[in-house]
């Protein structure tokens, strides 16, 4: 495998809040190779979105980020502001979950594309306009030229998401960070957007990091997956390996709890308890309180990420009990 495009090492994010420090992300490691699609899955509060935003340093002043984010070997977290700015939106672009709130409501779409081109290219006005039309066409927006003058509220939900993707693609990034890009959309539109993203990855040779809470989306869209729980990385590996034989009790339980896997109207196998709170530090494994495989050590010691196969690693003391294919869950 080539040197990874992006390498995240021991990433930590702590938010200072009036009620004390919140450890949103804790000791996270993962890599993204060129042209690769990585899915980061987790439930709300698992830190997946924070992770994504920490990469181009988009978190606000109340967040403290530690660790390293190596972009082609260079630590983005230590980059001077101007170089970081050139990287953002240039090599590393991002799309957000809610296009309605991520697009500036008072600027026409054309201008929102144009300003990226001004920031990252040396094109003249006419060329930028042509490029903007081309970009809208690329993401499947019809009569692109007329649409440039329109404002976000004049677009439908799916169209807005396409427009945002067009903006992100403007400077031909090598990596696209997508934060739940389809969560706000209907399933048929989600399908369209996901297929659009995959097409772009192939055609433009981009890498894509796709954050989502939907295991199904990951299953159909990603090459590799990273599963997060309570700010920590549980398991990472190819989609087939992780979903086919999870090596972390949380991944395992999550997959088992999904409906549509067993017989209709049978009881599901829920994960007991409630999602974790991350405003207090956890000594051992964060999942231990809800884990059916928990052992005494899980409550006291933090499991380290261990490789189980080429590119498949998990951080679970009970990993040896797991790994069997889930009957009926995944073909």
């Amino acid at each position, binding site marked *: 495998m080539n040197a990874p495009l992006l390498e995240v090492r021991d990433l930590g994010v702590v938010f200072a809040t009036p009620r004390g420090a919140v450890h949103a992300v804790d000791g996270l490691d993962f890599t993204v190779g060129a042209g690769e699609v990585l899915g980061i899955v987790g439930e709300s509060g698992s830190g997946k979105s924070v992770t994504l*935003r920490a990469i*181009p340093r*988009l978190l*606000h002043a109340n967040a403290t980020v530690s660790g390293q984010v190596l972009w082609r070997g260079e630590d983005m977290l230590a980059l001077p502001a101007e170089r970081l*700015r*050139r*990287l*953002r*939106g*240039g090599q590393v*672009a*991002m799309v*957000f979950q*809610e296009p309605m*709130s*991520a*697009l*500036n*409501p*008072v*600027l*026409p779409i054309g201008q929102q594309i144009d*300003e*990226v081109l001004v*920031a*990252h290219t040396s094109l003249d006005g006419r060329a930028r306009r042509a490029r903007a039309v081309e970009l809208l066409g690329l993401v499947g927006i019809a009569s692109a030229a007329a649409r440039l003058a329109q*404002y976000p*509220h*004049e677009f439908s939900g799916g169209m807005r998401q396409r427009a*945002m993707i067009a*903006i*992100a693609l403007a*400077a031909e990034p090598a990596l696209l960070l997508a934060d739940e890009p389809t969560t706000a959309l209907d399933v048929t539109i989600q399908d369209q957007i996901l297929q659009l993203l995959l097409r772009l990855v192939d055609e433009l040779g981009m890498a894509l990091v796709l954050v989502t809470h939907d295991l199904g989306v990951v299953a159909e869209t990603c090459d590799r997956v990273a599963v997060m729980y309570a700010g920590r990385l549980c398991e990472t590996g190819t989609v087939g390996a992780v979903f086919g034989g999870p090596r972390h009790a949380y991944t395992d339980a999550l997959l088992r709890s999904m409906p549509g896997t067993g017989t209709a109207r049978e009881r599901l196998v829920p994960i007991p308890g409630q999602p974790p709170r991350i405003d207090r530090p956890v000594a051992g494994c964060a999942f231990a309180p809800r884990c059916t495989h928990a052992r005494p050590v899980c409550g006291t010691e933090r499991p380290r990420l261990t490789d189980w196969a080429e590119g498949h690693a998990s951080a679970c003391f009970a990993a040896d009990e797991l790994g069997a294919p889930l009957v009926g869950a995944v073909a």
Partner: protein
Amino acid sequence: MNRSTWLLLRLLQVIPTFLLIGVAVFVLARLLPGDIVSSMLGERASDAAINRMTHQLGLDRSIGAQMLSFLESVARGRLGDSLAFHVPVLKLIGDRLPVTLLLSGMATLIAVAVAVPMAFVAALTANRWPDLLIRSVFQVGLSSPVFYVGLVLLTVFAGWLRWFPVGGYGDTAGEHLYHLFLPALTLALSFAAVVMRSLRASILQVLTAEYVDFARAKGLRGRVVLFRHVLRNALIATVTLVGLQIGSLLGGAVITESVFAVPGVGRLMVDSIFARDYPVIQALTLVLAVLVSLALLVSDVVQMWLDPRVGR
């Protein structure tokens, strides 16, 4: 609905508002107690003189008839004569209105010129000392009564230091600005505080908006993010507020003009209330209300210009 029709409708909307204002003003003025005529003529006037004057003013007709004739004359642009000065009310107001407009305009300018940069500094240093300092100063400004501030400024800067003239209005344009500076400053104080608070809050809110993060993610320069994305959006709410505040501003002018002996409509209002000069009170309330609704109109138009979502 496109924006020009929206604008047209917004303009048309002014008409029923004006009509309502007219009725409200009439009712208000007619409620004034005390026999206005005997108040006008003084304690020594004869009953005959009072009856004569009452008849002349049409005050012996029915309320409904008085209202109709009032509305009719308003529609014809005739607001009657001042009972005290015996000149057409419109002339009286017309002479003073520019003064008050200039005063309010200067106050608005001063307030905005001070509040906008300060709001920026405060928002960008939220909860650190520059923010706390700015907020404290403005908070005190907001809590200070106009009449007292006016008295202090007048005494210190005009009376003792002689930097500014003591009230009045002057004769030339330059003198107008010079004379109105202190009153405008007085008036601007609480206005600036309101604008600053609101703008600071909007900026803080906008700073957390996703589109600002997205703008940063696009690799835009800090300046571009701040002005194109943050300020413009933050101003939208503030523009509405400024429009709504014009009313308070004119209210403040009532007091400020009295303290600084500025010959504007605010002082005329106070004088007329004490003199029970009905036609003037009526016309002034009408004019002030119309002014405010025009200010609201302007702020709506500005808002439309700033915010493409309006009117669609």
